[in-house]
């Protein structure tokens, strides 16, 4: 097991090197004075910072040399300083990721609570009206553009009904504290959480349905019926426990991704998480942050697949990872 994890991590490091090479290469393909044109528009950026950037990223060296320099920095944990935040990138990332997490986590829980029961219901009643309805809803969720759905929610619930604020993380003019602050922030999170929930729910629902249908066709389900178990016991005990294996696996794999934020939703609702800051960084030419956050997101994807593979071995008694 540990051997397996270590090997996977080694592969992961290789993959991350590939990812970073692509990102670094992209940045370096920019015309020579790209950095100075980008930074000249930002008065906050001092010459000293530009020098440090050139130093760390080896922008004065040839591409392989520069990459080696940068990679060495990353191994030391030095991702450089963000131009916009004026702080080390690693520090910014570790504080912003929690904001992204607290937006994504409620959506994750809601998705689980809604998608799994509905997916199983539609599998047990295959080709019924309920199944058609659930399938339609699931596919609708998968087909909705996030920015459009966000706009509709903003129009209805923020502008129309005035129940929730349009965007932002807390009411600026109020100095709430303690519980009131939490309540205020929760209110601001309702709409973005709704967007994330609805967008993610479809895929999960379909996944549950497909797996449940597969399990219901297995021989051991027939055995369970032949034992004299009631239909509900057959479905909710015998079939469900087996369906849980792939579901838990995929759900576990989603957890690291909760930290990576979502650019569009965060951008629309002005939530100051990883995604939104990356978006501003990309627009403002904050190269250290762009590279840092992109690498961070890639790493989270890798960790996600690793988590789900390891979970598979833990949950399924048949699988022993090698």
């Amino acid at each position: 097991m540990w051997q397996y994890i270590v090997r996977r991590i080694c592969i992961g490091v290789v993959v991350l090197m590939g990812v970073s090479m692509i990102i670094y290469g992209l940045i370096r393909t920019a015309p020579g004075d790209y950095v100075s044109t980008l930074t000249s528009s930002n008065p906050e950026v001092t010459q000293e910072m530009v020098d440090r950037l050139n130093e760390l990223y080896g922008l004065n060296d040839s591409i392989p040399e520069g990459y080696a320099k940068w990679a060495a920095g990353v191994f030391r944990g030095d991702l450089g300083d963000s131009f916009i935040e004026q702080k080390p990138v690693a520090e910014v990332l570790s504080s912003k990721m929690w904001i992204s997490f607290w937006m994504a986590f409620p959506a994750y829980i809601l998705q689980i609570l809604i998608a799994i029961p509905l997916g199983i219901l539609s599998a047990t009643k295959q080709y019924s009206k309920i199944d058609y309805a659930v399938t339609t809803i699931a596919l609708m969720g998968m087909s909705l553009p996030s920015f459009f759905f966000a706009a509709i929610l903003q129009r209805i619930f923020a502008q129309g009904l005035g129940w929730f604020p349009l965007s932002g993380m807390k009411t600026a003019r109020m100095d709430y504290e303690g519980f009131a602050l939490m309540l205020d922030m929760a209110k601001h999170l309702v709409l973005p959480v709704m967007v994330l929930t609805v967008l993610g729910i479809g895929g999960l629902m379909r996944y549950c349905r497909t797996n449940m249908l597969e399990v219901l066709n297995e021989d051991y389900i027939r055995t369970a019926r032949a034992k004299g178990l009631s239909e509900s016991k057959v479905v909710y005990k015998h079939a469900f426990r087996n369906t849980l294996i792939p579901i838990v696996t995929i759900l576990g794999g989603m957890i690291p991704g909760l930290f990576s934020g979502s650019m569009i939703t965060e951008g629309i609702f002005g939530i100051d998480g990883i995604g939104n800051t990356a978006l501003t960084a990309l627009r403002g030419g904050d190269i250290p942050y762009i590279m840092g956050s992109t690498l961070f997101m890639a790493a989270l994807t890798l960790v996600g697949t690793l988590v789900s593979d390891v979970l598979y071995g833990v949950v399924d008694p048949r699988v022993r990872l090698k």
Partner: protein
Amino acid sequence: MAKDINLEKVVTPGQLVRKRFLRNKLAIVGVFILLGMFLFSFVGPVFSPYGEYTMFYFTAEGEEFSSEDTKGYDPAGSGVTIANKQFPSRTHLLGTDKDGRDIFTRLMYGGRISLTIGFVVVFFQITLGVTLGGIAGYFGGKVDNLIMRLVDVIYCLPTLPIMLIISSLLIAYSIPQTQKIYWLTLVMGLMGWASVARLVRGQILSLREQEFMVATEATGIHPIKRIVKHLVPNVMPQLIVVATMGMGSVILTEAAYSYLGIGVPFPFASWGNMVNVVSDTIILREYIFMWLPPGLCILVTVLGFNFVGDGLRDAFDPKMKR
């Protein structure tokens, strides 16, 4: 006579698939949606009295004229105003946008771009994926390892940041607006082939394991011929499903890029960049006709592809008896 034909001898597998597909109501709805959308986007403009970029103006007296049919007026003349943000009327079925262009006409052209990009990108992804996946699966060993690591890298790359970096590079190299669409399709194709490659490689590997492949080997049929002959029927159904669903997701991604201003560039019409106006809260509140129709177009088209793709998957799956 009709009573006695032996169906199993006459009916081809293709007919069975077609029949299962036609029995799926959602899939039929999807087919009609897509047909409608194609007609709307590709045939519609022929009947439209206006062009994609036609702008409308009001003279000081309030008479409307357009950049194509100036009726003797000068758009730059005194007292002439742009006929923008007009509410839906008989002349402008869905009103005009903030630059005074006819929204209904632009919807058609936007659909043209979205659907074309969808086709081209998916074609590109499939070609690349099948080729590389095929090479990896067929040759195995080092080549396989290399390609699969590349797949891992592509898989981990956060697409949106990469797209943003590339778009700022395009600006830095001052690439003309008209060429950006080609870059967009190219990058989207390059980012999306990984899953297809995985699928094809997996199929080839499992095929190699199977006994009938050993049998063909024993009969001395050329390996490539063998693989192609047995691979195509095995992988084709999945590829068709992936391609259909992929069309939907490419359109969705393109819309998101266009919404962020890094996709289809102005002045070209695209459903995504037409929804973009919602960032203006006044438009979001007062001019629903400007952003709701393009958003719905995206939703409905992607839903159509998803319905059809889902229906095809069920139809191809011989286990999904009903």
